[in-house]
């Protein structure tokens, strides 16, 4: 018989509709306390008891009727959270130990019901919007056939991308921190070659080009060459080509000597190092941007490729921006990874909410076009990593890999720090920039770290000569 153990510790009225507060630690612990523990016994089988079981779960977390409206709100938010965790719980663990697709389906159906119900009354709250995306993500784990693919057109994507940049500092933080490190490193060089792991729209280089053109040392701007990695596939290649065209046009408009080339990854996402043209006398920089909201998930193979490339080419500078997570408890499989993803996007949602509370349509667009697919991907990744007999270790970030491989940390300057803080300060004071070592800075929302920017150089060369 399945036991449902619910720990309802903590003061419910202390919650707000946001999931991260300045007393973040308390809330995080409280959330962990409240997540339902479902203890499966090996004897469980069959679906006869499902309906009554799910009713039991849902009834137990139905709030009391007499509480006030705000608490009701919080309770609703909590209820959604509980249901999400419950369905994740149902999906985790090895199949023979009670992992139940059916239970998950039922819970998810109930979740959708709740969300639709409340949205008929009024427009969705922050929490509800988040919950919907997670529900969809979880659903696609249960139904193999349903794919909530990204159906946004190019126009939508660009608009959403623009809005995202206006609403949050995530993208600019990564780009500007890397650019400043690059500018400082190539101050005396006449030719620069940048290998870009994931160029996307190329926005980062527009800013860099402006910087190069505006150097007031009396010399003409140094020549910039960008080589972009292009994943196999017609659409990807076309996108990269288009980005290249745009960058060339932009460079022409400001008078920056520029050339662009792309290097295609093969069908298994591997990069052949010999395909990259390296010219003597050029300052070589490798730029790796990952996990920015608008960039889709890239395979491990391509990451390994780029790191091998870095090892073989010994570039002057390597700039890395990737997600940063809090320490995860080991060995809990899908549930703990899922929780991590959930907390992460709760923080993101809160950050959007804090800055732009009433921008429902604009935010809705950003959430749908940009974050929705990211959530789906992250949940799927978390699931795949926890699935099966062998649980994969927590994914090691590029920064850590470079560290282990012996690359030298490259100090992030005072100027760069200042810039990062000024930048995030423009958006909202809830964003925090913190140093995490001499060559790393972390952007976070309140107390939750979100993005890590780090700068490295090759051990062979010494910078600053």
């Amino acid at each position, binding site marked *: 018989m399945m036991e449902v153990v619910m720990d309802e510790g903590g003061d419910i009225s202390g919650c707000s509709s946001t999931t991260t507060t300045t007393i973040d630690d308390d809330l995080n612990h409280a959330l962990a306390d409240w997540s339902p523990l479902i203890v499966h016994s090996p004897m469980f089988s069959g679906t006869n008891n499902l309906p009554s079981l799910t009713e039991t779960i849902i009834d137990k977390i139905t709030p009391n009727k007499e509480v006030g409206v705000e608490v009701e709100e919080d309770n609703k938010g909590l209820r959604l959270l509980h249901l999400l965790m419950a369905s994740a719980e149902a999906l985790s663990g090895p199949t023979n130990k009670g992992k139940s697709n059916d239970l998950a389906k039922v819970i998810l159906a109930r979740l959708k019901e709740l969300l639709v119900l409340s949205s008929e009354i009024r427009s969705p709250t922050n929490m509800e919007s988040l919950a919907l995306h997670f529900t969809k993500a979880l659903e696609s784990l249960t139904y193999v056939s349903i794919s909530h693919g990204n159906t*946004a057109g190019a126009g939508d994507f660009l608009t959403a991308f623009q809005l995202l940049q206006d609403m949050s500092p995530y993208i600019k933080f990564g780009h500007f921190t890397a650019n400043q490190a690059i500018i*400082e490193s190539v*101050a005396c060089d006449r030719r620069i070659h940048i290998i870009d792991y994931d160029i996307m729209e190329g926005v980062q280089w527009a800013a860099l080009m402006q910087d190069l053109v505006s150097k007031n*040392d009396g010399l003409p701007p140094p020549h910039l060459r960008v080589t972009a990695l292009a994943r196999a596939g017609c659409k990807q290649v076309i996108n990269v080509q288009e980005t290249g065209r745009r960058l060339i046009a932009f460079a022409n408009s*400001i008078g920056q000597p520029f050339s662009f080339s792309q290097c295609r990854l093969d069908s298994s996402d591997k990069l052949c190092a010999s395909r990259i043209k390296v010219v003597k006398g050029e300052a070589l920089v490798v730029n790796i941007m990952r996990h920015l909201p608008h960039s889709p998930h890239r395979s491990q193979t391509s990451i390994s490729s780029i790191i091998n490339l870095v090892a073989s080419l010994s570039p002057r500078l390597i700039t890395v921006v990737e997600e940063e997570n809090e320490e995860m408890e080991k060995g809990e499989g899908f549930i703990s990874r899922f929780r991590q993803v959930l907390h992460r996007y709760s923080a993101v949602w809160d950050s959007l909410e804090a800055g732009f509370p009433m921008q429902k349509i604009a935010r809705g667009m950003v959430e749908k076009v940009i974050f929705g697919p990211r959530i789906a991907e992250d949940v799927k990744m978390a699931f795949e990593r926890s699935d099966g007999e062998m649980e994969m270790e927590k994914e090691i970030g590029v920064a850590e890999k470079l560290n282990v491989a012996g690359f030298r940390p490259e100090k992030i300057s005072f100027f760069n720090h200042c810039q990062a803080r000024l*930048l995030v300060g423009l958006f909202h004071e809830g964003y925090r920039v913190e140093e995490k070592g001499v060559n790393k800075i972390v952007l976070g929302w309140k107390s939750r770290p979100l993005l890590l920017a780090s700068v490295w150089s090759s051990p062979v060369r010494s910078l600053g000569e």
Partner: protein
Amino acid sequence: MFHSKKPTTMNNSHERPMCVQGDSGLVLTTDPKPRLRWTVELHDRFVDAVTQLGGPDKATPKTIMRVMGVKGLTLYHLKSHLQKFRLGKQPHKEFNENSIKEDMQRNAASSSGMMPRNMNKNVHITEAIRMQMEVQRRLHEQLEVQKHLQMRIEAQGKYMQSILEKACQTITVDNLATLGNMKDMNSQMSFPCLQDLHIYGGNGGDQIDMQKHMERSSLDGFLHNNDNSCDLGKKRSDPYGSNGKNPMIWTDDLLRFQDQMGSQEEPSKSSSHLQIAPSLMGASGIDIDSMPNVYESKPMISTDSGGENKRHGRSSIERPSPRRSPLDGERINSMIRGGTSPQTRNLSYGWLVHQVSYSHHYKLKHTDLTT
């Protein structure tokens, strides 16, 4: 070596050593061992170079030498100067240019009999001056940061603008012509997808619904920066030392542009930011006060001479509440002038975004910013 000579040099400094100016423009003394004189200009160039390279910790004598490009300047000169700069202690000789220094000299000269006590007093004054210069150095650097950040944000904005324009040209205008001048937004937003956004709505894609949503969205989404910045532009004449000219220019151009937009039936290309502006600025029924001031002015980080690594020391500027009217220019003005400590500035993101929207049209170059 300098420091041990301090007292004696102070007393003797009224007899300035003879200086010659070399071919390279460097001022050397005519001691038996020629020494480089760090004049104000030379020091300024040094500071510029160091800032460009990312601060005193990041710069090295070699890179500084290259960036400064001054003939006759050797690594030794730079090494020692950089070290002193890093420690925040200005080279003693530099005080010669400073009138405060002259006071100190006068003090020293007049009471030469009480040298020990004066030495102490002068040491304290020197300390104070040093700290002040350190603070000024930091402030200067932060101003640099601000300038560069602004330029970078604008460059990105310009680029995004060009992308959006190109995308707009390839998207056909939708059949929402009933929305009148709102249809300009169509080409940017590709509205059919808005129907998808009605995930929570009972009936998806009801046109009237969408119209309401669109009106609201245009109110919510894109106008704030214009309102805010237009106002800021008008009332704020000199937000930054070096960029005083700009907001005024943008405002005039904004108004001109709006006239242009208002008279056109179908502007061929512009960003969604610009196109919303005329239709809504002109609309009478809009309750501007109800729009939240989402692009608030943000206080800049205050200089903290002790800890550049300490983050959370915000200045004590009173931040506007989100519900106040964006047109309250007086409040913004007073925040900038009255309420701030001299070491902080207000940087409104709304203003920056506004810059971004227009920079493409006015072909913003870096030189415009650094007048």
